[in-house]
């Protein structure tokens, strides 16, 4: 077990639901599975708003749909409790889409989404929904839910470990819900996750706060 954990520490890399962080903070994140990848750089110009660039790739069979956006994120609600935190974010983006699924073409694209999370030092839940549309290319929806628990409470300078279960539904890409158990780690400003779905699809995510 400890060998596996150490292996994960070193080879795995990912992303927390933190689209808006502290004022003047920057988040770089990359989330990857065989059916999609989501890469972004977001700058928080206040503790409520951030903006940046976001690239998505959806893979259906051998065909990719790429979308690039200028994205705006807003932390609509934050609850700061004594030992818990809850957040609700909304997102919007404009950009371009390039798809091979029907026939290769590039067109304008839009995205919108919402996500919420609630966490304590040992429990975690989140739910997010995104909708992508490029009127002449494709429409895509994605819903993701997570639950997790931490087996111990790490100190400030220690590595924190989480066990999580992710359910993701992208009906336009995969007909089934993808269930992925994963391990999340974070140390100071770096967070990484490694998982494998019940159908043995890998997942690697990494996120860094600057």
């Amino acid at each position, binding site marked *: 077990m400890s060998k596996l954990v150490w292996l994960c520490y070193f080879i795995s890399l990912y992303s*927390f639901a933190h689209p808006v962080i*502290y004022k003047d903070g920057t988040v770089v994140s990359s989330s990857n599975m065989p059916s999609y990848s989501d890469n972004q750089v977001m700058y928080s110009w206040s*503790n409520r708003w951030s903006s940046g660039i976001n690239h998505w790739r959806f893979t259906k069979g051998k065909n990719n749909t790429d979308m690039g956006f200028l994205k705006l994120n807003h*932390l609509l609600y934050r609850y700061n409790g004594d030992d818990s935190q809850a957040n609700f974010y909304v997102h919007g983006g404009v950009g371009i889409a390039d798809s091979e699924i029907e026939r290769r073409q590039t067109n304008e694209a839009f995205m919108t989404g919402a996500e919420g999370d609630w966490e304590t*030092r040992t429990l975690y839940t989140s739910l997010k929904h995104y909708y992508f549309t490029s009127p002449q290319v494709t429409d895509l929806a994605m819903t993701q839910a997570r639950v997790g628990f931490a087996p111990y409470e*790490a100190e400030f300078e220690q590595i924190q470990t989480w066990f999580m279960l992710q359910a993701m539904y992208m009906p336009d890409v995969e007909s089934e819900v993808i269930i992925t158990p994963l391990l999340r780690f*974070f140390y100071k400003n770096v967070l990484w996750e490694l998982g494998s779905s019940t159908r043995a699809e890998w997942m690697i995510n990494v996120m860094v706060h600057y």
Partner: protein
Amino acid sequence: MKKTLILALLVLSPTIFAKEIKVNVQGMICSLCSQGVQKKLSKVPGVIKSAFQLGKKEGDVKILPSVVITTEGDNDLDDKFINKLINEAGYNVASIERK
């Protein structure tokens, strides 16, 4: 001799006159949360160090997450400044203790 004394005083003064301010923070539940606060504090003139303690329970007593800010004696960060800094990082100040 006099010179040495002045020099020693100059070198030691930040530690002799250093002050500690303990800020209890709501919502700062992990090290990732604390990063923003730490980054902001590192840019404040006169702040020598910031030490973070995440929240915990001792028996039935809840201990809030906190940061202990050590400043050079002459830089006494006022409550308003501390509140603004913690809010910009995304959290709330529960209380401030000065020693």
